């Protein structure tokens, strides 16, 4: 009974953070700000859902640790895709004075001329 309540709480929090991530994607107004939405959904959102699955497996079946692997691979790959989207955005900003300027007068890897 207590375990079921815990599973339900984890599922609900996972759903909540995934929903907030999607709302962020809709509501925020610049491409870089929008990128912050999905990073939430993929960390705490999916994390809670996987946690719920793991608790259920240990409480009712033999137990399963596949979820740990899913989480590990997700945490390794999610920043890469985020970085790709950010890079595309940086290439579109090329030549505009919008970007933060480096103190030494050096350039960013995506926008350098070479």
């Amino acid at each position, binding site marked *: 009974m207590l375990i079921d309540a815990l599973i339900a709480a984890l599922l609900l929090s996972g759903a909540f953070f995934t929903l*907030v991530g999607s709302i962020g994607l809709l509501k925020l107004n610049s491409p870089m700000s929008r*990128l912050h939405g999905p*990073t*939430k959904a993929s960390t705490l959102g999916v994390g809670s859902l996987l946690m719920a699955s793991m608790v259920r497996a240990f409480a009712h079946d*033999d137990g399963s640790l596949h979820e740990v*692997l899913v989480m590990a691979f997700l945490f390794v790959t999610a920043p890469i895709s985020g970085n790709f989207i950010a890079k595309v955005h940086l290439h579109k900003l090329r030549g505009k004075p919008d970007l933060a300027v480096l*103190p030494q007068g050096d350039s960013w890897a995506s926008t350098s001329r070479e």
Partner: protein
Amino acid sequence: MAGKLFPHPLLTALLILIWCLLVNEFRLGTLVFGTILGVLIPIATHAYWPDRPRVPRPWRLAVYVAIVIWDIIVANIHVAFIVLFKRNSDMSPAWVVVPLDLRTPEAITMLAGTITLTPGTVSADLSADGLALLVHALDAPDPDAVRDEIKQRYERRLLEIFE
């Protein structure tokens, strides 16, 4: 001899662990086959990975991972609050330049990944000479505070682990 048999000891340990998790059922046979894979794969891929990443203090990684997971939970709640209740015009998104003391590529990758995983900040680019990281913050009235927190909380610990 040991260097030839185990060109990447950490990779060997990681492969054994991942194999055991993939099989999802602990038996002696799983461990033995995992060990065989853990020895063969690093030898077979050795040519593509000539430098061994140096990790002088790997046990501190556990503390680091625990801190990052805690920060992910706290920052998620904070950012959920911003997304739901703050109007777009009240937000102050900012580019933050984080000068790097880290030099190891693996450590810089981990720092950039950590910054992206903790909500509220996304790492976007590295400077051409590899000495600074470009970070975008969702709501940062004080960009210098964001920079100092990244340096204090994450980079200092990574420096201890990798250098």
